[in-house]
């Protein structure tokens, strides 16, 4: 598998790559073709165009980019902004693992996951998940799976800043926290 075009230096401008494993070819145990993954934690606005560009390949007929963005209203409560904290070294390890697991289930050509830490204002992206595959069903499904896994097992936490002055770390009771299995 040939080397993918890497993002040019212009698209990297302004990024703080605290922990990154970039474009390391990984051979999953099941698939015979290697796939490329890029995992990054950043402290500045995510270059979403670069994330999508980074998974491009002439072998791909499908490229999916998901962005998680800060939403203003949730169940009647107004969010002013979100803060994200993370256990950086373990977050990168867990993100690498879940990307590898995704590549064992779907024929992924390339994927890129970027999570931002620190303050994320309304409408800004806190997380980007991009994936490319030959056909679209695999891109849609694998991107959704990776995001769902991220939300269950990656050591990153958000703190809500509500209108009215209350701030609250989010430690959900519902849902499946996979850390405690």
């Amino acid at each position, binding site marked *: 598998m040939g080397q993918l075009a890497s993002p040019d230096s212009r698209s990297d401008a302004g990024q703080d790559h605290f922990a990154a494993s970039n474009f390391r070819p990984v051979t999953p145990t099941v698939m015979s073709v290697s796939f490329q993954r890029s995992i990054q934690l950043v402290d500045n606005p995510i270059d979403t165009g670069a994330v999508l560009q980074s998974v491009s390949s002439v072998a791909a007929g499908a490229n999916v980019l998901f962005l998680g963005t800060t939403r203003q209203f949730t169940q009647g409560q107004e969010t002013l902004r979100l803060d994200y904290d993370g256990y950086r070294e373990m977050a990168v390890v867990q993100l690498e693992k879940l990307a590898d697991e995704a590549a064992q289930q779907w024929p992924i050509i390339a994927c890129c996951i970027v999570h931002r830490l620190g303050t994320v204002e309304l409408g800004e992206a806190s997380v980007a998940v991009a994936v490319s595959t030959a056909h679209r069903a695999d891109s849609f499904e694998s991107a959704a799976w990776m995001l769902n896994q991220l939300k269950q097992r990656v050591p990153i936490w958000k703190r809500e800043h509500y209108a009215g002055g209350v701030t609250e770390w989010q430690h959900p009771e519902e849902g499946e926290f996979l*850390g405690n299995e």
Partner: protein
Amino acid sequence: MKLKVMLFAEIRQTFGQREIEIDCQQAATVAALRNQLKLLAPDAAALIERSAIAINHAFATPDQSIPADAEIALIPPVSGG
């Protein structure tokens, strides 16, 4: 042996520090460590109970024993993305 436990989010806020040092028996288990943490911060006991413990960047099971030089973190229920 002395163990350092990294703290995050609400639990870091409760303890008021980024990590805490705990005196533990040699080869203490994850479950024993969790109990000690709950005793140190009874107000956070419910959240500590719902939290995971990570050893060297991997989630640990309750009966796992903790190596002396391990990097340990208390991982409350996550909310990334």
